[in-house]
């Protein structure tokens, strides 16, 4: 399943924008699909969008499951770095929280 972000949101900045994408990705992952998320025509995104659209998936799915099912395409270095930073920080944070 291919999800082109610009087909679903007018801006790709706020938490609300991210939530629109989150629901699409979450539903596809729940169905066991492989999701290709396209950042076509997007150069950069703020943390609120990444947190809402993607990092929130960690509340329902394990990181390795997300990594195996979610493909990021048409992205830039800035987008890639932010996604990875936010995911790894949140995943470690959740582990720290679980360890008490």
């Amino acid at each position, binding site marked *: 399943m291919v999800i082109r972000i610009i087909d679903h949101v007018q*801006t790709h*900045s*706020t*938490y609300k924008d991210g939530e629109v994408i989150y629901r699409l990705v979450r539903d596809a992952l729940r169905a066991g699909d492989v999701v290709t998320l396209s950042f076509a025509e997007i*150069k*950069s*995104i*703020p*943390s*609120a969008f990444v*947190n*809402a659209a993607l*990092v929130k998936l960690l509340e329902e799915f394990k990181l390795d499951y997300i*990594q195996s099912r979610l*493909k*990021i*395409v*048409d*992205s*830039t*270095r*800035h*987008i*890639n*770095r*932010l*996604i*990875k930073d*936010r995911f790894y*920080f*949140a995943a470690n*944070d959740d582990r720290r929280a679980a360890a008490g």
Partner: protein
Amino acid sequence: MNPRPSRTTRILNRLLDRVDIDLPRNLTKETMQSLISQVVDEDGKPKWSRVRLNLTRLEFIDPTGVVVLCNLIDYLRRVDVSVHVKIVKPYSRCVEYLDDFGFFKHYGGDSLRPQASLRKTTVPIERVQSQRIFAYLDNQLMPWIADRVGLAQDSIAAVKTCFEEIFHNIDDHSGVQIGCAFAQFFPSNDHIHVAISDYGVGIPHVVRKQIRGISDDQALVKACEEGFTTKTNVRNRGAGLPTLIRYVTLRNQGNVLLASGRGELAATPEGGRTRIRARTARDGIYPGTLVKVILRTDTFEAMAEDVKPEVFQW
């Protein structure tokens, strides 16, 4: 030092519930609190019902001073305080500078001088409401920055994202959903200063909901820690300010300065890392939050690489 008003003037002012405030010679981050504290009390309430701001001694005002002055006037008007401004002819260069970016036109309805016009080194002051963030960034601030650094607007998209982080922060925390923004290019050192401020509840107030008793300066440090979330910003997992600071200091080699309540914080690059220093403001409080970003224009070309395509790998 400002000359102390005569005893008669002070008594008269008290009776009439009015005050004359002499603006300092230099209105900057260093002097803003002393100005504010003469007009607004520690709870953020106005001290007077009539205020006259005397601009005759003002010789220099930087972008921080501009947003502070405009925020102060906007705030006083909002709470029904009568605000007047005193200026004298011949106008000082600083008053001409204010006139050129539209200060008097905005507050008085007309420019002071017929030849007043926007300088290439400034953008007009803007009150940015949350629903207008993108229009302001896309149509005003970013084209102006792109022009100053000679790059396409697309190439500096990551810089735009930095400002989005600031405006989202205002939206999430301040309770006012409106920020005042101003920017100036300094050709002498090729720096761009962007000051964005709100007169909301301030970062320390929000952090103290989570950590009771924390000082204002340490509350700012906490707000800049990755992963620190308050009840109001849990949605963003405490990433906005850290992301802004990391990008500006490490990729642009620029600085981020914060002032809120009695706290001040400076984030600067040092040996490939970000150095955070916080202190208690010396001259009073800042009722709300001020974010000043100092960008180096000589690193923009390298930053343009950040928005080029790259294959994603986990």
